[in-house]
């Protein structure tokens, strides 16, 4: 077989292709969400799919997040494989009871009698001047809940293949697609046809400091690593990919070598996933650390509209660079 050329596509197209594959492969699969059909998807992920698959497979829902999530959960219990779309994580708060008290809880609470193989996709994040009620990053919050698998695809490859892995898994999975990443373009290695939903990945190897991150903070971290390299600091950038369960083995292996760690997380700093990771490093890798852990998170404010204020509120590449310099070459 000849080597196929890498395929170029956007993150959005990767998400769409993942859904198309799922619908083509499994008749139990269908998409349910607001504006997924006629509108083509709020972020155009499902554009064209209604025409291709019909209204039974691409189901436009009323604006009713609780029943959108809950019916998806019930349908999954009943033998279908719904791909629930909550338009953005900002609206998911209306579905939180169904996600936490039903999806995450029923398997354990029923003594293992019922699995909930539902997949819920949500757009997440800030950076498009959509103001406070449309700019949350709640994936870290959801990662607090036992029973859920929480996924944050940060690359085209993960956008393309995480969905299939989540659908194959018997557990409820949340997939957080960052709104800024939808337009990102990249190449898919044709040799890769699946990904796992358990491991973190080293996206850039380095020996001086480990940067742990996910989602739209990944490109910022990689950009920071490039600048740092020109100064002779080699940062290892790890894409967490899976926020629950955390791949502590990969995290510890890296930080155990570099002995310095920066966590870049778009959630608000207090009680965030970065706080969880920092706690685990302090608990289990304390004696390997040569410097305090640094966290670059969103400022503890509702995310504002004005461009410069929003930029100041969200994690900044410059702050990642400064943190790395401070750790590797303390004054």
């Amino acid at each position, binding site marked *: 077989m000849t080597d196929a050329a890498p395929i170029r596509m956007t993150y959005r197209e990767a998400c769409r292709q993942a859904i198309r594959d799922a619908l083509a492969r499994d008749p139990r699969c269908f998409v349910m969400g607001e504006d997924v059909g006629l509108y083509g998807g709020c972020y155009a992920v499902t554009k064209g799919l209604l025409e291709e698959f019909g209204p039974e497979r691409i189901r436009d829902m*009323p604006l009713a997040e*609780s*029943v959108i999530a809950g*019916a998806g959960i*019930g349908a999954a*219990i009943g033998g279908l494989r719904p791909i629930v779309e909550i338009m953005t994580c900002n609206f998911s708060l209306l579905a939180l009871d169904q996600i936490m008290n039903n999806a995450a809880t029923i398997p354990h609470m*029923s003594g293992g*009698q019922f*699995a909930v193989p539902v997949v819920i996709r949500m757009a997440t994040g800030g950076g498009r001047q959509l103001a406070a009620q449309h700019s949350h990053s709640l994936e870290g919050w959801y990662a607090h809940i036992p029973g859920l698998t929480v996924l944050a695809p940060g690359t085209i490859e993960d956008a393309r293949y995480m969905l299939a892995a989540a659908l194959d898994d018997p557990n409820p999975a949340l997939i957080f697609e960052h709104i800024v990443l939808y337009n990102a373009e990249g190449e898919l290695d044709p040799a890769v046809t699946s990904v796992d939903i358990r491991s973190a990945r080293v996206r850039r190897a380095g020996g001086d400091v480990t940067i742990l991150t996910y989602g739209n903070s990944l490109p910022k971290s990689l950009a920071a690593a490039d600048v740092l390299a020109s100064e002779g600091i080699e940062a290892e950038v790890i894409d967490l990919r899976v926020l629950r369960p955390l791949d502590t083995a990969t995290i510890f292996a890296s930080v155990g070598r570099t002995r310095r760690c920066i966590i870049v997380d778009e959630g608000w700093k207090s009680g965030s996933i970065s706080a969880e990771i920092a706690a685990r490093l302090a608990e289990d890798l304390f004696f390997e650390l040569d410097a305090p852990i640094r966290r670059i998170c969103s400022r503890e404010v509702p995310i504002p509209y004005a461009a410069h204020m929003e930029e100041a509120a969200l994690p900044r590449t410059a702050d990642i660079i400064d943190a790395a310099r401070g750790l590797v070459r303390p004054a």
Partner: protein
Amino acid sequence: MSDRLKLDRRHGQHLFREMLRIRAFEAKCVELYQAQKIRGFLHLYDGEEAVAVGIMSALDERDSVVTTYRDHGHAIARGVGMGPIMAEMFGKQEGCSRGRGGSMHIFDRQTRFLGGNAIVGGGLPLAVGTALADQQLRPGAVTACFFGEGAAGEGEFHESMNLASLWKLPVLFVCENNLYAMGVPIELAEADTEIFHKAQAYRIPGEQVDGMNPVAVEFAARRAVESIRAGGGPYFLECRTYRFRAHSMFDAQQYRTRDEIAQWKERDPLARMQAWLLDSHLMSDAELEAIKAEIDREVEAAVAFAEAGTWESEADLERFVQMSEVPQ
């Protein structure tokens, strides 16, 4: 209209027996709660037996049941064994939910019994979902979704009713209107206290039923289920009933009078059914005694099963947080 409801000796005694099984089980629960064998919250079904029994009589093994935290009656009437239910309430791993859920969270895969939900209104979206799956995978199957009139205040009630109607999903919505949401009487909670009116707003056929009469409930249920199975979409039954006991074991019942309770007890479904069966010679005194004795034995056996049960190992605490397969 179905002619399958034959109120003959066999069926009449069946309805009576099923209600008495529930009543006897609940009485035993009170005893065991006071003896601290059962802990946490305990919500008893005394007075409402006709609803669970009447509805379940119209369902078959294809169907699914979603209910509230006041779920013992539904579970028993659905065919979940008294032993596993009692063991569950004791917290034993031989309980239907491995002791993980307790009184409020009876789950049973065999009988498609999906809880046991402690969030008021939280089961309705779930029921809409199982009905959606049934529509695709098991046409003809129905999901019976029980909830109290208090749930009609929750947003999830409205979202679920609307979607079920829109997509013509096979849900039998059963509102057990016992007039009190914990201690709030319906007049303080609902602008329209005739709950079945809400069904009309969603274009769901709905009726009010005498929830103290198992025959009335079953008759309405059969008609509703037949309509749903034929693809008629969801149906709504508001069963007017009353709980003779407190909301739970912690309730001082300051919100209602003894007189009111006494008045409703005159309509006790069990007493009335018993009297009617005896008067109509559809049950003899001897048969009545035999039924009671059999039920007493069944309840005692359930308690013995629970007592003999074992505690799940702490080492298994994280088991089933995530599943390795889809068992259902």
